[in-house]
């Protein structure tokens, strides 16, 4: 084994995800060629061939790095998460879904039955009377066919397997992805369990917009108001998650005149992102009259969507009971 230095063995996988994280890896542009030179990519369903049985045939710990994006939504996600955990030295929860549940986590507001009903039975685009729903097992002439079964709720990755590092973002910034790959390649890794490829403050701390005293008589959705380009969005009545959200994204959304959605997850020491957003948003309402306060807060539709757009599965209560 004293011959040429072994190439890094890596795998990328997606659970319940949209594919955006995989695209973000490709967005590192020509750097991906350096990765290919530096590493053997053993499994990456979206981009290259590679079979589960090849992974199963590996020695335990054979993979140096696994970047797992996506939440855990069904039995296949869990099976592969556990398999890759066993085969890898370093496993990274990559992107918001793996880190904190992501957009799929919003499904924790409804039951599995409600979802299946809406998607397959009672929906304007479904032929009336359709009774076809996916079943974990179905019997055909040739024998029985199995597909993964959907879980009752969405889990973040570290509910299922122990995770070494977290890379937040929906999707993570290409520059941050590079840093992570270089860190693994050089062995220059931070303390296990830490969030890497992100900052240690809030998005507000990095935001260039000026902040004055905040007093809100009316909340607006971004399209309902001509905004001041240099002033804090929350101060203008646009609900922004920046104050409760981890920095490191480069303040991309507020810089593009959109409020922060919270994809980098709770800021350090924030235990529940949504509770902090509720606290920050409500306390700036400019009224001392309970009825008026109610009226002003009614301008905010779908509070769960604002408070936990990405983090419901990682919130304290995790789901509707």
């Amino acid at each position, binding site marked *: 084994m004293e011959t040429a230095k072994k190439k890094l063995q890596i795998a990328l996988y997606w659970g319940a995800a949209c594919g955006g994280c995989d695209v973000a890896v490709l967005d590192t542009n020509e750097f991906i060629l350096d990765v290919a030179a530096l590493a053997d990519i053993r499994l990456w369903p979206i981009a290259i061939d590679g079979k589960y049985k090849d992974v199963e045939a590996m020695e335990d710990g054979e993979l140096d790095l696994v970047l797992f994006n996506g939440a855990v939504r069904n039995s296949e996600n869990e099976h592969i998460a556990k398999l890759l955990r066993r085969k890898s030295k370093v496993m990274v929860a990559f992107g918001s879904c793996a880190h904190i549940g992501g957009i799929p986590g919003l499904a924790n507001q409804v039951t599995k039955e409600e979802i299946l009903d809406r998607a397959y039975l009672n929906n304007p685009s479904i032929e009336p009377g359709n009774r076809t729903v996916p079943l974990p097992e179905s019997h055909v002439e040739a024998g029985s066919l199995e597909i993964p079964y959907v879980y009752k709720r969405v889990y973040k990755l570290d509910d299922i397997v122990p995770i070494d590092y977290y890379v937040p973002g929906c999707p993570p910034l290409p520059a941050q992805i590079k840093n992570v790959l270089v860190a693994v390649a050089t062995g220059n890794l931070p303390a296990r369990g830490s969030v890497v490829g992100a900052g240690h403050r809030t998005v507000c701390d990095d935001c260039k917009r000026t902040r004055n005293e905040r007093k809100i008589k009316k909340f607006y959705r971004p399209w309902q108001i001509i905004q001041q380009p240099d002033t804090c969005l929350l101060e203008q009545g646009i609900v922004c998650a920046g104050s409760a959200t981890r920095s490191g994204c480069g303040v991309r959304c507020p810089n593009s005149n959109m409020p922060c959605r919270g994809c980098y997850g709770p800021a350090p020491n924030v235990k529940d992102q949504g509770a*902090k957003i509720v606290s920050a948003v*409500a306390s700036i309402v400019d009224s001392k009259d309970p009825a008026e306060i109610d009226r002003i807060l009614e301008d905010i539709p779908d509070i769960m969507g604002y408070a936990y757009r990405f983090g419901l599965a990682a919130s304290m*209560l995790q789901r509707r*009971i």
Partner: protein
Amino acid sequence: MANGFEPKIVGFLCNWCSYTGADLAGTSRIKYATNLRVIRTMCSARIDPTFILKALLEGADGVLICGCHPGDCHYVEGNYKAMRRFPLLKRLLDAYGIENERVQLEWVSASEGRRFAEVVDRMTEQIKALGPCKVRTALDFDMAER
């Protein structure tokens, strides 16, 4: 609900009015339900919504928030912050499926020992009728069975 269910209610009481009001209930020897576990905070504005979620997660069946009456805050405006956060927090809790009566906000002054006792009695009865809060058991169930 099964007989003998004694709810655990966490009470966050502001130092200046409500905690003193609770003290008055005690020194006046007013009898009231023993289900409230009191945590003193300096102001009702200090009560972060996180505290309420955490209390429910750790097994509280209800949470009572008490502060000075509007206009009487020791820090002038603190209780208005609590007043503003409460309706949005309630919407969040409603979306989580937490029943309305489980989390309540009441203004109790330092002279309202009697009222404090009544508030605790009333809330205890309401939560007894609701039964135990299911948050903890639901999450334990999630980890045991997918």
